[in-house]
């Protein structure tokens, strides 16, 4: 095999990273709530990822790796620090009993209600918002979420359950209001 024909690192990075560009931007704006901050965050993520690409192990999950970089970059930014400063400390690993699924879901069959749902998602605390996006929008497996957020799978499950419950409660309030 002619080694010189292997794609250079930059090309390989581009090949792996660019298809995720739109999704990463979407995720970034959900975290930052601001388009220009989202652009800065995505740009910084790509620069960091490209620099650290040699530490990425081929064959492991690139998507979880680059999402983790984006999230860590966000958490150390000013907006990220502000968002995490208000996180209450509670027992994460206690498995949440699902809230009774009353009626709010059925109100969302109609996509016209999307704005209301988006508003409810905006209101979620950061750690609930991000895990819900990774699971429902990015369709990541629990294993991928665990790698992205650097938390055990048990915590993924309990946090997801709490996130869904919190979302239902916000919806219930919004619908009732």
């Amino acid at each position, binding site marked *: 095999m002619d080694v010189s024909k292997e794609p250079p690192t930059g090309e390989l990075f581009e090949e792996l*990273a660019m298809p995720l560009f739109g999704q990463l931007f979407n995720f970034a704006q959900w975290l930052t709530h601001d388009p220009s901050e989202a652009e800065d965050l995505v740009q910084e993520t790509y620069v960091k990822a490209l620099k650290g690409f040699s530490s990425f192990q081929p064959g492991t999950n690139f998507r979880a790796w680059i999402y983790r970089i984006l999230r860590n970059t966000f958490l150390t930014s000013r907006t990220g620090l502000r968002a995490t400063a208000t996180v209450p400390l509670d027992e994460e690993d206690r498995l949440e009993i699902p809230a009774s699924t009353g009626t709010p879901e059925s109100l969302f069959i109609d996509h016209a209600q999307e704005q209301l749902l988006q508003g409810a998602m905006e209101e979620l605390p950061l750690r609930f918002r991000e895990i819900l996006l990774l699971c429902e*929008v990015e369709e990541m497996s629990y294993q991928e979420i665990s790698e992205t957020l650097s938390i055990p799978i048990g915590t993924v499950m309990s946090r997801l359950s709490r996130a869904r419950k919190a979302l239902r409660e916000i919806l219930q309030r919004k619908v009732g209001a």
Partner: protein
Amino acid sequence: MDNYSAKLATYLDGELSADEMKAVDAHVRSCNACAADVLGQVQLKRAVQSAGKRYSPSPEFRAHMQQKIASRPKTSPVRNWLTAATVVAMLLVASMVATYLGSRRAEREQAFSELVDLHVATMASANPVDVISTDRHTVKPWFQGKIPFTFTLPELQGSEFTLAGGRMTYLGQAPGAHLIYSVRKHQISVFMFQDRDIKGGFGDDPGARTRRSFAVETWARDGLRYFVMGDANVADIHELASRLKAAGSS
């Protein structure tokens, strides 16, 4: 119900073990409270999925980033203007291709989402099929004159699959056939449309995969686009798909 209700979300995320998936499957079919709960949770999952795809980067930002991370070989100063022109042209093409691919992907997602709706709505219906028969020689002729194509159905004797019947359906205004099969206690939908009517540039799946909590396999053959989907496991979906493919080519 209580034993199961705690597992429903994990079940819908497709993260239970195969045995547990089967057990919850079976339970949901016999417990109205859990079935209603599942329906609500699926609706919320899908609504969040759709609402969550909210922001997209501007074409300028995409082009900027593409340029920033593109590997740039060193060129002589004389050639720089040429390279610059090439880069601009390539970026233009890349952004057009990306926009095109993005819209194709959105079309595919839209089609899947409509098919999931059709499947779920049919399963929830009191009269899921218009022609009730386990005999493929009864079901196939029923479609004559109702859809602008014909198809071949596989012989299922000796397998775990049973044909339950069929109904006409539409996807993006294109008429098609919707067949319902059952395997053990699972219902599987088989959709057939003329491939040229289906937007999104679907390819041929090498096997079934999970999408939006349903196992799905799609392929095109002889101008028809097939979709096999249901809450059965991917192996069942793939087996039925393989039988349909074999019938189509025999």
